[in-house]
């Protein structure tokens, strides 16, 4: 059936609507126009990968030595743990913060020129008057480029996860027990590509609307910063309903992500967060309540501490939830962008 249609169309040259040019024609076009941007991404990620590898190797060695040591309490083992702590100090935190901008930069610099440069230099008048329908031209570019970027950044995310391993810990006390929901959450195998693709989509749309490359990049970074902040501060903790416990020792120890704490007395809500001063003065004077948790000194007086938290075991569900909504958002933004290309007034 379809074969008949195709051959009939082939025969009727022109008038009856030419058969569509195959999508693969766009591969070479996209490559030639965007190879510089892609090369830039490869160089940037390559340099960062070398950096992570070089700083990560000694860290992993020290970590491996520390967790392999038995018994952990022996002086020799304590030395190894100390070594690890010394080599790990600060590094993960700093790099975690610096790396936050990488998906935004990659997405903005690769995505903004796709349409903005055509509009800025007038070459859209060339590109959009060829035989290849312009919505298909836009679709091909705005799918192929993010897919390539996602593959590159996913590979980088694997490296980030490897680098992060010693910080996430497990093993004897004294080693790091960071929550996987911390700084590096958005830089793992799923979220790194997802955020990069989101930045790319935002940049492509910004380029279409603003029509100039540099302002489109600036706008992208601003929007991205807002989105990343909103996700980290407000959205992420709601991906799954937090678990609630009255236990003072959280399951999974300190790797859980504490969302909130509150106290009840006689089955009724007493106060949230830290106890008010008058209660502290009343029950926790004399240093009994020193430290972050006041629960031990308040418990004998009928107060129960409740903690809502996300256990570290939810890392991968959270990764996929964040990756999922980001990809959905990106697809929607790209669809809007293509629609604008198709209907835009020159």
């Amino acid at each position, binding site marked *: 059936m379809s074969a008949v249609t195709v051959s009939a169309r082939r025969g009727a040259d*022109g*008038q*009856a*609507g*030419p058969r*569509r*040019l195959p999508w693969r*024609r*766009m591969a*070479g*076009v996209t490559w*030639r*126009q965007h190879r*510089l941007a892609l090369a830039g991404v490869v160089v940037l990620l390559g340099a960062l990968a070398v950096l992570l590898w070089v700083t990560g190797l000694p860290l992993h060695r020290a970590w491996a030595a520390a967790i392999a040591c038995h018994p952990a309490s022996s002086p020799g083992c304590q030395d190894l743990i100390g070594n690890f702590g010394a080599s790990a100090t600060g590094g993960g935190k700093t790099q975690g913060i610096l790396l936050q901008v990488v998906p935004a930069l990659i997405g903005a610099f690769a995505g903004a020129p796709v349409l903005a440069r055509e509009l800025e*230099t*007038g*070459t*859209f*008048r*060339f*590109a*959009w*008057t*060829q*035989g*290849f*329908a312009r919505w298909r*031209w836009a679709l091909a570019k705005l799918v192929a480029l993010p897919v390539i970027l996602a593959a590159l950044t996913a590979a980088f995310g694997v490296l980030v996860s490897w680098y992060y391993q010693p910080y996430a810990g497990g093993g004897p006390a004294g080693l790091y027990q960071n929550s996987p929901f911390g700084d590096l959450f958005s830089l793992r195998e799923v979220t790194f590509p997802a955020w990069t693709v989101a930045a790319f989509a935002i940049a492509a749309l910004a380029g279409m609307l603003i029509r100039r490359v540099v302002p489109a990049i600036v706008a992208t970074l601003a929007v991205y910063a807002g989105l990343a902040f909103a996700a980290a501060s407000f959205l992420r903790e709601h991906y799954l309903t937090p678990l609630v416990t009255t236990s003072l020792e959280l399951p999974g120890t300190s790797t859980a992500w504490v969302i909130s704490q509150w106290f009840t007395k006689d089955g009724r809500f007493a106060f949230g967060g830290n106890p008010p001063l008058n209660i502290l003065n009343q029950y926790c004077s004399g240093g009994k309540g020193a430290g972050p948790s006041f629960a031990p000194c308040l418990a004998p007086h009928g107060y129960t501490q409740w903690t809502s938290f996300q256990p570290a075991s939810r890392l991968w569900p959270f990764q996929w939830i964040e990756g999922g909504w980001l990809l959905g958002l990106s697809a929607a933004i790209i669809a809007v962008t293509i629609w604008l290309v198709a*209907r*835009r*007034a*020159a």
Partner: protein
Amino acid sequence: MNVVEASGLGKRYGRTWALRECTLQIPAGRVTALVGPNGAGKTTLLNLAVGLTPPSAGEVTVLGGRRAGSPAALDGIAFVAQDTPLYKGLSVADMLFITRSLNRRFDQPYAHARLAELGIPLRRRAGKLSGGQQAQLALTLALARRPQLLVLDEPVAALDPVARHDFMATVLSAAAAEGVSVLLSSHVLTELERVASYLVLMSRGQVRLAGAVDDLLAAHGQASLEELALRYLRETAPEVAR
């Protein structure tokens, strides 16, 4: 067959009508000059004809009823926009590759022969070519698509006299040898004397006069296209100013 057919065509940008109530048939097999002062709506009309911009009113079809901007229409139209936009960072060979990839027909031997004749090296970046060479490259890319209709927007405005002459010579030989219909806009009247056999005169967003050059000259008792156009534009000026 008409290469361009417009009825009640209009284009509005914000509150301003760049083109109003344009009803027009441009016949095939001719070199048609779209003439008028700057801001007359020439570029708007051409953008509508090649489908770069959607109309605000009316409709326009090309090449015997194909919707402007549809794949079927663009399959048969080659458009060289004002200032001949090219990817300045790409080599001439890459421009050929891209144009060939984006079209069903592309006469590679013709393109190579033309560029060799013009002394344009394939490995040179498009941005490094002279203005005249860039225009010639854009024209070569357009003609290698073997279009039925070649649309040129102010093709020679930015060129020096020699480049101008060479460019128009290429256009005319393509029109003569391959029967390509040509629609070109210009505000330089002297250019068109030798080339155009059909005239569309525009001012202030409206078509003032359209017809075969010989008929128009005979009907209006003018010796040259330039005189005719000048006189007509002067005559319509008071009406336009109102």
